[in-house]
């Protein structure tokens, strides 16, 4: 609890306080004017802060060499998700070596708590937490990310490749 002392007589006259405040303000302003690289604040949104590589931002669905989704629709991410924000609908793939794939994969990002459990649960490196986090939108429906956004949004440049190779997997019988 903050304790308010009885103001002394000197401080009843506010000028010293104001002066000290102005000195602080102007000294910072001058420092910022002449040493812009040392400035603490950023000019958001023109400038953006670079987070560490392990930052858990918006999800990315990785793709295989041929550009199709890596995800096998096993739903382990959805099962593990504490916020229950992942919805997957699976279907049978024409290629018998693929078998199962998601026809829809939706993340309700407003419910997401960015815990990263989905990434941990994924057995095939199909979902990763990316670096982005500034994703404003105008309507509520824009916060439900679908496959097109999760895997092929423009800044992913055609998709991030998964570390796991299908052929290798099949060779060892997994």
């Amino acid at each position, binding site marked *: 609890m903050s304790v308010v002392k009885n103001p002394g007589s000197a401080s009843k006259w506010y000028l010293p306080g104001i002066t000290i405040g102005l000195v602080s303000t102007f000294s910072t302003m001058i420092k910022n004017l002449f040493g812009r690289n040392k400035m603490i604040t950023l000019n958001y949104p023109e400038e953006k802060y670079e987070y560490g590589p392990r930052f858990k931002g918006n999800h990315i669905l990785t793709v295989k060499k041929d550009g199709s989704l890596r995800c*096998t*629709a*096993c*739903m*382990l991410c959805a*099962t593990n998700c504490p916020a229950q924000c992942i919805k997957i609908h*699976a*279907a*049978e793939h024409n290629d*018998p*070596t693929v*078998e*199962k794939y998601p026809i829809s994969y939706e993340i309700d990002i407003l419910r997401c708590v960015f815990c990263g459990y989905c990434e941990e649960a994924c*057995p*095939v490196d199909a979902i990763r937490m990316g670096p982005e986090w500034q994703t404003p939108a105008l309507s509520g429906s824009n916060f439900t990310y679908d496959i097109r956004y999760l895997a092929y949004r423009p800044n992913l440049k055609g998709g991030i490749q998964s570390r796991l190779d299908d052929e290798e997997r099949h*060779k*060892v*019988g*997994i």
Partner: protein
Amino acid sequence: MPKCKINGKEVDVPQGTTIIEAFKASGQEIAHYCWHPGLSVAGVCRLCMVQIEGQPKLQIACNTEVKEGMVINNNSETVKDTVRWGLDFHLINHPLDCPICDQAGECGLQEQYMQFGKYDPEMAEHKVKKCKVVDLGPTVVLDSERCILCSRCVRFTDEVSKTHELGIFERGDRSEIGTFDGKPLNNKYSLNTVDICPVGALTSKDFRFRQRVWYLKEHNTICTGCSTGCNVKVYYNEEGCWRVKPRYNPDINGYWMCDEGRDIYKFINKKNRLQEITMTEKGVSKVFQAEELLPQLGLELKNAVQKNPESVALILTGQYSCEEYQSLLNLMVKSWGLKNVFHWVNHPESMEQFDGLLLRGDKNPNTKGLLNELDLLSLTQTWKDLEEKLHRNLIKHLIVAGPENLATFSDVKEKLKLFSSANKLIWLSAGIFEGVSSVCSQVVQIPTKTFFEKEGSYINHKGMKQRVTPGVEIVKSALSLCEFVEGLHHDNKGAHFQDMDSALVDTKLKEPLKENFFTATRGSL
């Protein structure tokens, strides 16, 4: 009654019991794959090994009968080691595709490995490659790599369905189950092979990839697809029902059920259901709440009956529970004095058919219950009488407790044509049938609850009374016939909901679900 000791516990079993049955009876755990109580003993998985005092070698529990004074254990180090290795032998060529395997979550291999497994795989060689995603027929898909060759499915087609489509071809670790040269596995019980498959080798086309099993809850009920009344489990979640599996009942269906019965979940689901109470007059439909429409309708009908009993007719199908018939008939026949009650038979020509195993030609779950109720009130009018009365335009008001499962009523269209001579049709049904609203000048459509949403009892062809309990609400405004009657008879709520004679009711249905249904009996072998 030989007595034996299993893991130190005294067990008394009938003569001729095998050790594995004694284990089950005494509630002790034993690993096994190939043994199934409904099939012959194959003894090939070699997992149910037990040590019997006085015998040098381990024996398999499924092929050894209990003898007086046997001392059996399966918790010694030798047995545990054998089972650990036995499981490892099963797994060395089993693909690690649990994430995309439909069986995951109810898989015998997963569960038993967790319980008895070795936990340090030593197989460093390449696994044997076999065919994946083999289309076995209209209902089943095979993945040969996942198959552990327990031969349950082959024994099923040989011993139960007797259709002999499946076989194990080749030998050694090249063995594969399959059908001859692409001949389809196409019998009326084919999906039982999926149920008894302890791994994900056989999967149902209908259920494949639709849901992960751990999202599903199960509800014990009976199948209303025909008059056999097989005991089943319906698996559902918040999105609806997904599949039906048989539940053991030695008196009715044993371990099996037919493929036709597995489709009954479809008519429960919301998209196939009548959603609202509507009244259509001159092509204009209006949605009503039950409270506003039914009392008024009740008054109207009551007056009509009392003015001229011949002008109102009630048509009943064998699809509702005994309690519903009782309450409807109590109101209309006993208190109003209605005489025109008719039984709508959907397949009169095949009513008595039976395929020798489970499937019956009578596609109604409660024909017997209905006939009992009609007999009690000595209502003996036949369908012919109805036809005649309709032709003579005697009937103005028609109340039809129509089909719940429209798939088994191929004659709805033709019957509706017959009904069109009435002035007002009150159509109670769970499903949607196109064109009902324009049959008569005034049509009231009332959605009914399916067997999955209500409490009641059904009497099967043998006269066995079985009780069902409500699973989950699917259509909010649906009514059971009891509730419909309550609505009509607004001043005397619930009076017609008669007590059921609970002595006859199958008590097995009353077992409460275990607390955590994700692990309860899921995938139990």
